[in-house]
């Protein structure tokens, strides 16, 4: 019998701590599949964030380092500058990248540092219990916006557009993992982003819209529907920038 579905080599055989319906597990698997497909597991170093993905080293079967909150792009810069031959990527959440770590991501992107960024945007601080994030939608209730987020709490930040406005990055895209079709597209995009780094093109950045049922107070199904109805219209999907123009779109 032909084996058609198995655990990627880049993933460990372990139970994840993610909540039911959380998209992190899907994104982690996409990343692991991309690393397997490109056959780069043995030269990869992952920079894990502070946030829901803090235990990434428990799930990925490759070298992983921790980083202070928001600083993965600086840590990845240090790794890649010291060892340009390694494949380096950061895996960051919206609090990590769009609040406390804004200076680090924008500066690393502007320098065109040759590493990849997988940015998981679920519009909430999940690990700390569902507080407001810089990407929280206006009107969204969180534990720190109990009456709904107001404009002066900060308009939801579109990170991919911001990063794409810089000359440094080679590839910027936003994807979602709310449907099987979107998961497939996201996987293709992550592979493309990783390939950019392998070709030495400069920073590649993929934002992935993710569901956080527990943080949103929704069932897993309702949370996926919210991604479609509320998030995608505000955070449009697609490849925003690619130095290989024929591959864009």
């Amino acid at each position: 019998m032909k084996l058609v579905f198995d655990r990627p080599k880049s993933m460990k055989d372990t139970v994840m701590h993610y909540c039911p319906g959380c998209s992190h597990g899907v994104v982690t698997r996409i990343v692991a599949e991309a690393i397997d497909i490109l056959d780069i597991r043995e030269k990869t170093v992952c920079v894990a964030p502070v946030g829901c993905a803090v235990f990434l080293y428990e799930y990925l079967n490759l070298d992983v380092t921790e980083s202070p909150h928001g600083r993965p792009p600086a840590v990845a810069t240090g790794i890649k500058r010291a060892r340009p031959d390694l494949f380096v990527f950061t895996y960051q959440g919206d609090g990590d990248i769009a609040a406390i770590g804004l200076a680090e991501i924008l500066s690393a992107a502007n320098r065109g540092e040759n590493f990849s960024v997988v940015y998981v945007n679920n519009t909430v601080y999940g690990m700390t219990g569902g507080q407001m994030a810089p990407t929280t939608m206006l009107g969204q209730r969180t534990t720190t916006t109990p009456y709904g987020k107001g404009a002066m709490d900060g308009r939801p930040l579109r990170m991919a557009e911001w990063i794409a406005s810089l000359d440094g990055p080679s590839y910027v895209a936003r994807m979602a993992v709310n449907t099987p079709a979107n998961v497939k597209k996201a996987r293709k995009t992550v592979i493309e982003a990783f390939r950019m780094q392998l070709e030495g093109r400069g920073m590649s950045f993929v934002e992935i819209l993710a569901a956080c049922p527990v943080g949103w107070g929704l069932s897993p199904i309702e949370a996926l529907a919210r991604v479609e109805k509320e998030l995608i219209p505000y955070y449009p999907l697609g490849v925003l920038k690619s130095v290989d123009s024929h591959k864009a779109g």
Partner: protein
Amino acid sequence: MSGAEAMAEAAIRAGCRFYFGYPITPQSELAEYLARELPKRGGVFLQAESEIAAINMVFGASVTGARAMTSSSSPGISLKQEAISYMAGCELPGVIVNVCRGGPGLGNIAPSEADYFQAVKGGGHGDYRNIVLAPSSVQEAADLSYLAFDISEKYRNPVMILCSAVIAQMVEPVEFMSPRRPEEVEKPWALTGAKGREPRVIKSLRLSEQELEEHNRHLQEKYATVKAKEVRYETRYLEDAELVIVAFGTSARIVSTAVETAREKGYKVGLLRPITLFPFPTHVIRKLAERVKKFMVFELSAGQMVEDVEIAAAGKAAVNFYGRMGGSVPSPEEDFEKIVDCYRG
């Protein structure tokens, strides 16, 4: 050559090829020297977007096993504390130079040694220690910069070089150690891609209390080894001293002239100059306290190291103090007067 440049050149000779920094007076000459030299000598100089980013880049380079360095001055060093705590927790080596300036706050750019507590007692969060080296000449700044990388790697712990602007800006002749290639040292913890081996993880997160306490015990054992093996100090005229002056760095440089004057005039005064501030020469002071009448501590601060001298003297000898603050530096004559007052008093 200036102390700042000497520390930079010694770092390159010690095999450091990665420098990440952010401009701040009075240490920018160190960064500028490396901006000129590192690209020519196979290294990377990167001016980061902040002191925070710079130390995290050191963290990253260190993750791969490379020798890396950053430098700053007091307010910038405050910004680096989070990552220094992470490095101590993750057991990553790295060299941090603090050319200390007058504080608190923005303070001024004049010579100060008021970051002693921050450097020696930890600085960031959690139970950890930096190994702290305090040069008092340009030659020693070079020697300690060279040594810092070895010690840092040996103990997998951040090493801080603490000096005032006097040491960094002063120009003196220097003899450098010969260059070497430390990359041949095997680092079984470094992240290099899991080729033909199990994946490695660098982390400080340990959620279970038992596991984190065990990790802390391991760190404390390491610091105990550092205390037992790495104490460095210089002494002068201790044999018959009735009054022992204790001072480090710039304070020691100035007060040593006053000690010479005192000896010429027949005062039985000795000098103990800690070169390592952590580990501190506690045992030397403890032994001296059995036979000398008094200690006098000179610092460019309101009195910080004096607390460690008091702990070491354990009430067996009087501990006096004279310090200048806010970037003011005493003259040797001023120090001499204070020595005589203390001696007679």
